[in-house]
């Protein structure tokens, strides 16, 4: 009796709900992803494609666009300012990495149980809390010829004084030093949280086996800090490539364009008072995007591997 009513429908009815369930199981993640993907499409993917599209035009933002093909890129290849920016970007990338070991060092130093250690920790973290604009201002006063502390110090040492921000060879290093100040604090906080999760039993076991000092750090502590190191690497690379605010505040790319980085050069060409060459700015943006893509795909590849447990 129980089976009887089911029989007529079994030929077509039974696979029905199962198929529907399978379909909805396939569909559900996409439905949940849809809003995010839509936003990503509208605000990230389409603008990237538009930038690439604009880079083939000569356009001042007002007059009609004028197709010039690869001419913007050809001009880039022959543009000294572009190479200066590219070189500075590389210097930024390399020197900014110093924030990771420096942050680790400070984190290890602060990772002890003392009265008031929380206060010291927050004092070390302080530069990351203040705005980059303020950091830039403080450092440009620090370097300023005439009244800056650093200038006075070098003047006392060598008699004439070194105006870092007026020296085309030193200016980028001066700005990077300013950038490192908050970046070190950022890496420090990442490592401090990482150190909290280092397993004490492993430390003890290593100690019993006679590991000490650097060996302990290298073979026991650092491997456990790998997730923190990975994040610190990512934020530092991103920080180095977006080094726009400090350059803008401290030098506006000067003296005579020697502290430009690609992001600032792009802004200058496309949007600043003397710019409005949208096509050329877009071409610079595409190059910057290509450089970032190298790192981004590296990270994505690593995360994909980690997730599959390789």
């Amino acid at each position, binding site marked *: 009796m129980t089976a009887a009513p089911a029989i007529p429908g079994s030929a077509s009815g039974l696979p029905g709900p199962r198929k529907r369930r399978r379909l909805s199981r396939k569909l559900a993640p996409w439905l949940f992803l849809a809003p995010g993907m839509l936003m990503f499409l509208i605000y990230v993917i389409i603008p990237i494609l538009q930038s690439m599209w604009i880079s083939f035009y000569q356009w001042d933002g*007002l007059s009609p666009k004028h197709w010039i093909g690869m001419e913007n890129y050809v001009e880039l290849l022959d543009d000294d300012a572009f190479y200066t920016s590219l070189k500075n970007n590389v210097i930024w990338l390399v020197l900014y990495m110093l924030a990771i070991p420096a942050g680790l060092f400070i984190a290890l130093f602060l990772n002890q149980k003392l009265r008031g250690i929380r206060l010291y920790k927050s004092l070390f973290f302080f530069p990351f809390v203040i705005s980059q604009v303020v950091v830039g201002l403080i450092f440009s006063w620090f370097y300023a*010829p*005439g009244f800056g502390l650093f200038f006075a110090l070098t003047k006392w040492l060598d008699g004439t004084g070194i*105006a870092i921000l*007026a020296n085309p060879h030193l200016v980028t290093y001066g700005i990077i030093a300013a950038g490192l100040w908050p970046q070190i604090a950022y890496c420090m906080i990442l490592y401090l949280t990482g150190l909290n999760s280092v397993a004490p039993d492993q430390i003890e076991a290593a100690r019993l086996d006679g590991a000490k000092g650097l060996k302990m750090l290298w073979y026991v502590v650092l491997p456990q800090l790998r997730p923190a190191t990975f994040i610190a690497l990512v934020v530092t690379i991103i920080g180095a490539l977006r080094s726009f605010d400090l350059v803008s505040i401290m030098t*506006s790319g*000067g003296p*005579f364009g020697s502290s430009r980085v690609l992001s600032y050069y792009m802004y200058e060409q496309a949007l600043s008072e003397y710019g409005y*060459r949208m096509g050329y700015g877009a071409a610079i943006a595409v190059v910057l995007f290509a450089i970032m893509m190298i790192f981004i795909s590296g990270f994505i590849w690593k995360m994909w591997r980690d997730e599959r447990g390789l």
Partner: protein
Amino acid sequence: MKLLKTAAIAALVAGMALPALAQQRTLTLNTDASDPAPKAAFDQLIKGFEAENPDVHVVVNIFDHEGYKTAIRNFLTADSPDLANWYAGNRMAPFVKSGQFMDVSDVWQENGLKDSLAPALSSMTIDGKQWGVPYTYYQWGIYYNKDVYKKVGAEVPKTWDEFISNCKKFKAAGIDCLTTGTKALWPAAGIFDYLDLRTNGYDFHMKLTNGEIPWTDDRVRKVFAEWAKVLPYTTPNVSAIDWQDAVSNIVQGKAANYVMGNFAVATFKDGGMTNDTLGFMDFPEITPGIPRAEEAPTDTIHIPAGAKNVADAKKFLAYVARADVQTKMNETLGQLPINVQSTVGDDPYLQAGFKILSTADGGIAQFFDRDAPAAMAKAGMEGFQEFMAYPDHLDAILERLEKMRKRVYKN
């Protein structure tokens, strides 16, 4: 039924009220007058205009001075006002060429502005037509510390050679002969403009900023050779100094001369200088006999192509051009009126500026970044900044500028 009646009456009232409202016409003005003095001057200007034209209501949108330079590109194409502030010379060329500004030659014709605004006629003209009305300008020149001159026993120079020989006296006293702060690039262009105007004259300078003369020309090199004479006596590291910080060099007597625009007087006085200690002189003569030209950036008002109330906008331009209006407005601005029938207040710097500008038979230049197109101006000013730090880079700088010239003026 009652409801219907009320609605009918309401509709009737609205119908009667609307035409009454429409008689009060509106005129929108977008301006960058965000600083206190320009804001007061515009308030006064608009009150005066509304008093004479009670049927027009002027709506003012004030923008931040720097932000305006970007904003104007957006509002001209998207939501156009009836009037907008801008600058004369090549600075308005992009808007004229892309058809964003309206030709107002008829306003000039009907009001005889070609005579009354004669000093600014050439800088308002593109393709033989006038594209706006100028309402104020200010002179550039050399501001100097009178006490320092007395201290070393130097006379105010009339020629460039005298200026340089003064520099030796200042150097002996440990004072910088010339100071500036080129962090924002443009102060260096003031020095270049005057050296070129005095060495080669107005016509050459205009041709150079128009891209008709190669930067590698010998006459351009001559300008830099004159500049090189004063570099050993110039404050070092100027590329890291803001122009306001360089003012303090003059105030404190660490430097003697500063090539600047008249707007800096307020900053000098904030630093504690008075009419007795702050001097002003015209830039000294270099090549004898060429007609004297001066530098005076001009601020202007234009009618955007998308203006809705063109008739009243033109009325407004005619009002702004009037001698009495310009006199009153520039009193508040602390600048110079362009209308030749206007009068100037008894401020000694304005008096001096009015004198040198109204007798400049060579012509009036706008400023390097207004006479040259944007990309050329930027590259040029960077070149000047580099030259001040590394005079021996001159060949490389001029070649770079020449490459830029070939690209910028191509189309």
